């Protein structure tokens, strides 16, 4: 009797094309539990109005909600702050931060 392994049920091309998305999906599903590090610690990014930082275990964590920021010394609402990439400066390397409503933020960062 011929023994057919699971590997032989899928042609090699199919195996190679299915593996990366399957692995990525699995990682995304499991990332909430922590076993798959999906980011590099200290990385930052914008997700909607939130600034997120990658923690020491490789998980994204929200640190600032730009939509909830108020402008010091002015009225309660002058337009919404937004999350944007910002260049390196004396405070640290390039990253992401909340920027005031009057600044324009596009894919290339704050202007």
């Amino acid at each position: 009797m011929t023994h057919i392994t699971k590997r032989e049920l899928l042609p090699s091309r199919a195996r190679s094309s299915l593996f990366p998305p399957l692995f990525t999906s699995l990682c995304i599903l499991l990332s909430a539990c922590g076993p798959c590090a999906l980011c590099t610690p200290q990385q930052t990014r914008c997700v909607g109005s939130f600034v997120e930082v990658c923690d020491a275990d490789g998980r994204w964590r929200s640190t600032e909600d730009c939509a909830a920021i108020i402008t010091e010394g002015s009225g309660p609402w002058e337009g919404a702050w937004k999350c944007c990439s910002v260049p390196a400066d004396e405070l640290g390397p390039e990253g992401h931060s909340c920027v005031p409503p009057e600044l324009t933020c596009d894919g290339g960062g704050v202007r």
Partner: protein
Amino acid sequence: MSSQKPSTFESPLPSSQRSSKRSSLTSQPQRPAPVTSEQVKAFWEAMQARYGTQTVDKPSAPEMRLLAYVLARMGVTDRETFLELESTTIGRRIYLPFTPGIATPQHSLWSQIVTCVREHQHVEQRDREGAWRFTARYLGDRAARALYKADAYTCELELHYWRTGALLKPRALAERLKGYGLRDADLNVAEAALIAAARTVRAGGVITSATKVALTWLRKHAPELGFKHTQGGET
């Protein structure tokens, strides 16, 4: 949930996002008015009324003396530092190594205001996430604890900027987390979070809920404590 007083300061102003509102800041900003004992007492009373918190004298509290002993035996922090310098918030009880309104060499009047806001930010975190979830993550997840602390220290960034127009150094703030059982990698992440916060603060933003409450009170009752007041600007 305990914290020490700040140490290092950074000279004022930024580069790219410098707002025109800040252009009046000279290289030698005027000193804002000194803080009075009455202001500190009134501020603490207002914050406690707003959050429903109570203060406890830390050095004499039996539970804190026991905790100090345990932490010292574990090598986390020495007894004197924990009892005499650090504040600790558990639930709605804030254990203080000073009496609000009475300045000491270790606890200036302004630092007592900053401590009040920082500790109430921990109350905000607990309210936001729920007592059990917050406690479990704070005690059981070092990466989460680092970011809770960074969030509370953001209050210090915000208040220092309001008072002086200068930024505290994110790295110096992150270094103060060393006594909390964190890894070096956690401190680096806390610094990354504080850098992001410092950029927002420099652009004129107020991030934390406790600082929003605090500044509302300070602008109304003690605007002279802010640097913009001495600069002739709005507070």
